[in-house]
């Protein structure tokens, strides 16, 4: 029986969303995690708490607030409209934005843990050998923290694939645009297409298992600090 045409489109969309989110998160979270790992600022605590919020909030809450903020009357919505981008809810890039928030702690925390594990000493050693701050970051901190990057990439990718609540609130259910695998499974179940639901749900189980297995084999840093 296998996958239907719409199933495949949902899978393709999900992968595109997860890859985009993962790439953007690695870019954005590297400086944030670096700062969190090394700062002695009193803002460290509050910022850490905000970064961790998506871990504990129901995804529908995140989705609801993002919908309100990005909608035509929300502050971000008015900004995107003024910039000529239109409103983002119910578009692919709206989903990307939601996923960035939703998966943020899964990228920040492994990176932060890895940077903390590198510690001050190798950077000091590099400084005594004539390496400036950017040089030290690129040639010492990044390579020594590479395990954290692998973990952050895998976790933010996998977590985005498993997203449901945020998508439903912010993206709706538009085939090829915002209908990701988790929503497609929900649709199949609603329509009593259990065989179809099994194919996708089983695929997700196998996928998640492989991801976690791969993580165990490759990672050198802790999953979460």
């Amino acid at each position, binding site marked *: 029986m296998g996958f239907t045409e719409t199933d495949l489109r949902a899978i393709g969309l999900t992968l595109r969303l997860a890859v985009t989110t993962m790439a953007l998160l690695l870019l954005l979270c590297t400086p944030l995690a670096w700062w969190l790992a090394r700062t002695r600022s009193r803002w460290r605590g509050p910022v850490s708490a905000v970064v961790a919020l998506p871990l504990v909030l129901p995804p529908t809450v995140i989705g609801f607030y993002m919908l309100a903020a990005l909608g035509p009357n929300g502050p971000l919505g008015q900004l995107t409209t003024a910039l000529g981008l239109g409103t983002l809810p119910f578009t692919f890039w709206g989903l990307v934005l939601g996923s960035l928030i939703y998966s943020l702690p899964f990228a920040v925390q492994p990176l932060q843990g890895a940077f903390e594990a590198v510690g001050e*000493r190798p950077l*000091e*050693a590099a400084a005594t050998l*004539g*390496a400036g701050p950017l040089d030290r970051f690129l040639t010492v901190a990044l390579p*020594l923290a590479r395990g954290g990057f692998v973990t952050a990439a895998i976790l933010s990718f996998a977590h985005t694939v498993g997203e449901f609540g945020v998508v439903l609130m912010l993206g709706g259910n538009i085939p090829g645009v915002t209908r990701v695998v988790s929503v497609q499974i929900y649709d199949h179940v609603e329509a009593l297409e259990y065989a179809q639901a099994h194919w996708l749900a089983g695929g997700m189980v196998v996928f998640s298992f492989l991801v976690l297995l791969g993580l165990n084999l490759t990672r050198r840093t802790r999953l979460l600090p």
Partner: protein
Amino acid sequence: MNAENPGIQARLRLQRSQFTLDVDLQLPGRGFIALFGPSGCGKTTCLRALAGLERAHPGLVRVAGSTWQDDAAGIWLPTHQRALGYVFQEASLFDHLSVRGNIMYAQKRVQSTGRSAVAGAAVAVEQAVDLFGLASLMDRRPATLSGGERQRVAIARALAAQPRVLLMDEPLAALDAGRKAELLPYLEALQRTLAIPVLYVSHALDEVARLATHMVLLDAGRVRASGSAEVLMARLDLPLAQGDAAATIVEGTLVHHDSAEHLSTLGFAGGELHVISTTARPLGQRLRVRIQARDVSLTLERQSGTSILNIVPATVTGLREDSPGQWMVALDAGGARLLARITQRSVTALGIAPGRSLFAQVKGVALLD
């Protein structure tokens, strides 16, 4: 010190929770300079402030004619712009690079800090690799090396940066006795060959006695004494001349070597010293020997029929109780300083007092060079 090589000048003030570092140092432009003192006296903080890893304020640091810090003139060079080498207590190698990669890391950045201007002052990379016996380790990862090997790589890496001063923070402290003994000869070789000053932090007197030419004694963040190692180690008012490790250094000239008996004879102002040596050196070479206080005994008349080879006339310059029943006696042997640790009973029996002339019998002499 001369105009070409003005040495190291450091005035540093730095507040810490346990102490205030407040030092004003003028150090020679070459040789092994030991920063010595008990744990927590500020040795490491002093070294880090020199390197710019800690910010002393106010501070003044001048090394080999360049100013690294002068708060009065608003000068502050960050660590990576200071031409220094730093060896940490734990080797702190880059685990993601091979031994070669670690050493090249330093070499690649030499130009960027203007260090090459003094290329002649330090050692070439190949020389450093040679000196520390690293040729066979070049492709290894730091994680596969022993503690002693890692520290050898760390020192060679620091030298590859073409520093004008080498700062070493207890490089042996993290090693067990066996590894320590393995690394010490490398440090002694360094002491002989290096044309730049080495600042060596240690709280182990035996290490210092083997290596140091100049000593800075720190206590609670302040300089208690600074001067040549020979003079400081023999001073009864300092904690160096105390306990089992107390020793003095005597410098002399090689006047004879008996290769059949492996015995070298050193001449110095106070007489001659015989020392076991398996290597033949050119006559006339200046050599340093270390004599431990516990290996020196005193007699009023020159003994004959004794297995002790080294008997030199000396004058008592001072004495002080070392531990219950034991006294430390300071001696002058023709300008050379000796310490003898003897019992209270002997002090009384021999009438030991400043000015007393007698003979020092030296049972053990160790060549340092």
